[in-house]
C-alpha cells in the first residue's frame, strides 16, 4: 500500500497542532493550558472537576469530550502515547475548583503510570484526586482480571454520564460512585478490518490479512479473541453482540443483560468504516436486541473513537438505572458528542 496522503504540517507536531484546532472548534468555550491540555473556560467555583485524557490520534476523543455537561478538561499525550505527569498535573490545576478532581480514562499501562504520577504531584499541592479506570473492552482479559482490560469506545457513554453527574455532584466521592457504576455497566466489543497509520512514520498500526477480520481487537490493533474470515454485516453482528452478552453473564460483579433492561447502544466506527456500514450493522443489532427484549433507550452512531483511518467497528452497551437515565437525559455539547435535552 502506498503512503496515505495526510493533510498535516510537521509530522512530529500533529498532536500540538490538532489541539490548537480543537480549541478553535470550541469558539472560546475552552482554552489551552500548560504543555498540552484543554480545559473549559468557565468551570464554576466548588465544582467537582472531571478530567479525562490519553494519547492523541484517536480524535474526536478524548479531548473532544471536553464540553458543556461533559468533561472539564483533558490531558493530551502525543500520538498514541500517554500524557506526561506534568501535563496531567497542569490540567489538574486548571480544572480544580477546590472540591476534588476525578481522573477518568482508559486502562493502558502508560496512561496509568503517568496519571498516577500526575496525581502524586497534585496531591503534593493539596488537590484531592481520585481515579476511575475505564476497562470496557470485553475481549482484552477475563472479567475477573479487570486490571488487564483495555478502555475502548465505551468511554463515550461513560464520560457523558460522569460529565452529567459532575454538574450536580456535591463531593468527589459521589462522582466517583457514579463513574464507577457507569464503567461497571459498560461493555464493548470491537473488530478490525484494516489498520490506521502512524502519522510520524506512515507505517500501519498493525497487520492483518486481506481476507480476515480481527474479532475483539483493540483500538490500536491489540489482539482480540481470534481472526475470522471476512464476512457480512449480518453474520458478524450477532458474533460481536454475543461476546458482549457473554461478558455480562460471566462477570460476577454485574447481572446478565435481561428482558426489560434499558441500555445505551453505541455503534462506533474506528475511522474509515463508513456510516453506511455502521447503520447496516445497527439494523441487525437492533433486531437481536429487540428479540431479547432489551430496550434501547438511546442510540449513538459514528466515528467517535478512532485510530486514524483504521477500518473497524465496535458495539458498546451501557445499562442504565434510574440515576443513569436521568443523567443521560441531560443535554450536552462538545466536538465529539452532543445531544438535546431528553
Amino acid at each position, binding site marked *: 500500500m502506498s503512503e496515505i496522503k495526510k493533510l498535516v504540517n510537521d509530522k512530529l507536531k500533529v498532536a500540538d497542532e490538532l489541539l490548537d484546532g480543537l480549541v478553535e472548534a470550541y469558539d472560546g468555550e475552552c482554552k489551552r493550558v500548560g504543555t498540552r491540555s484543554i480545559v473549559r473556560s468557565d468551570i464554576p467555583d466548588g465544582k467537582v472537576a472531571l478530567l479525562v485524557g490519553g494519547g492523541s490520534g484517536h480524535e474526536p476523543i478524548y479531548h473532544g469530550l471536553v464540553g458543556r455537561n461533559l468533561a472539564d478538561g483533558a490531558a493530551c499525550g*502525543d*500520538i498514541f502515547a500517554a500524557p*506526561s505527569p506534568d501535563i496531567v498535573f497542569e490540567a489538574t490545576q486548571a480544572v480544580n475548583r477546590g472540591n476534588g478532581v476525578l481522573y477518568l480514562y482508559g486502562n493502558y499501562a*502508560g496512561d496509568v*503510570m*503517568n496519571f498516577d504520577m500526575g496525581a502524586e504531584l497534585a496531591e503534593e499541592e493539596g488537590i484531592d484526586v481520585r481515579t476511575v479506570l475505564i476497562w470496557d473492552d470485553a475481549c482484552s482479559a477475563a472479567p475477573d482480571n479487570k486490571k488487564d482490560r483495555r478502555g475502548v469506545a465505551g468511554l463515550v457513554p461513560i464520560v457523558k454520564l460522569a460529565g452529567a453527574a459532575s454538574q450536580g455532584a456535591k463531593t468527589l466521592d459521589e462522582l466517583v460512585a457514579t463513574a464507577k457504576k457507569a464503567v461497571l455497566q459498560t461493555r464493548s466489543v470491537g473488530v478490525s478490518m484494516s489498520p490506521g497509520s502512524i502519522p*510520524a512514520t506512515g507505517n500501519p*498500526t498493525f497487520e492483518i490479512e486481506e481476507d480476515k477480520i480481527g474479532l475483539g481487537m483493540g483500538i490500536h490493533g491489540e489482539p482480540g479473541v481470534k481472526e475470522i474470515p471476512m464476512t457480512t454485516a449480518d453474520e458478524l453482528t450477532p458474533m460481536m453482540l454475543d461476546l458482549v452478552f457473554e461478558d455480562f453473564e460471566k462477570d460476577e460483579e454485574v447481572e446478565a443483560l435481561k428482558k426489560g433492561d434499558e441500555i445505551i447502544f453505541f455503534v462506533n466506527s474506528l475511522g474509515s468504516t463508513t456510516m453506511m456500514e455502521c447503520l447496516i450493522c445497527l439494523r441487525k443489532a437492533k433486531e437481536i436486541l429487540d428479540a431479547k427484549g432489551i430496550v434501547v433507550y438511546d442510540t449513538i452512531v459514528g466515528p467517535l473513537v478512532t485510530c486514524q483511518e483504521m477500518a473497524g467497528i465496535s458495539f458498546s452497551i451501557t445499562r442504565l438505572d434510574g440515576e443513569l437515565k436521568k443523567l443521560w437525559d441531560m443535554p450536552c455539547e462538545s466536538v465529539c458528542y452532543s445531544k438535546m435535552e431528553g
Partner: protein
Amino acid sequence: MAKENLSAEEVKAMLLHVADRIIEAEPELTDADRNLGDGDHGLGMQRGMNAVKEKLEGADFESVDKAFGAAGMAMISSMGGASGAIFGTVFRSGGKALAGKENFGAEELAQLLQAAVEGVMERGGAKPGDKTMIDALHPAAEKGKEVAGGPLVEALDAVAAAAEAGKEASKAMVATMGRAKTLGERSVGHPDAGAVSISIILRAMHEYVAS
C-alpha cells in the same frame, strides 16, 4: 586512568555522555521498536535525552542523587507515554536511593540499579520475562550486587555486559506488556527496544568512567 567515586559534577558529565549516545542511537532504537512496537521509541528517547541535556547543562548539583533525579524528571516530563514514565523512573527511583550522597562508586551503582528495577516494576507492573527493558535492567542489577566491592569501571563493564546479555535473551521472549502486546507470538526473534536502550545507557556510563 579510569574514574572512581564520581563527584556530582562527574555524574552530570556522565549523564550528558549517556544522553549523547542515546541521541546518536536514535535510528537503532527506532528500528528495534519498529520490529515489535510502533516505531517511536528512538524518537521518544531522543526527545527525553535532549531534555536531559537542556536541564543538566549549566546546572550545579550538591549531591549525586540530584543529578540522577533531574535527569529522570526531564525524561518523564518531556517524553510522556509508558516509556517516559519507565525510563524516567530508572533515574528518579535510582537517584532517590542515593539521597545526599556526594560520590558515586560501585556500591552506589548497585544501589541505583536495585532501586531502579524496583521502581520500574512497581510503576509499570511488568516482571522479568515480560519482554521489556526489565529484562536488561534486572540482570544488570543482580550483577551490580556481585561487583559492588570492586572498582566502578569494572562494575560498570560487568553490569553493561549483563544488560547486553539480557537484551539478547529478550529476543526469545513473547511480549506481554506495552504496545508490543499487539504482536504476541510474532514478537519472538527481536530484542525489546527498551532493553536496547538500557544496554546503551549502561555501556555509555562505562565509557565515560573508563575514559
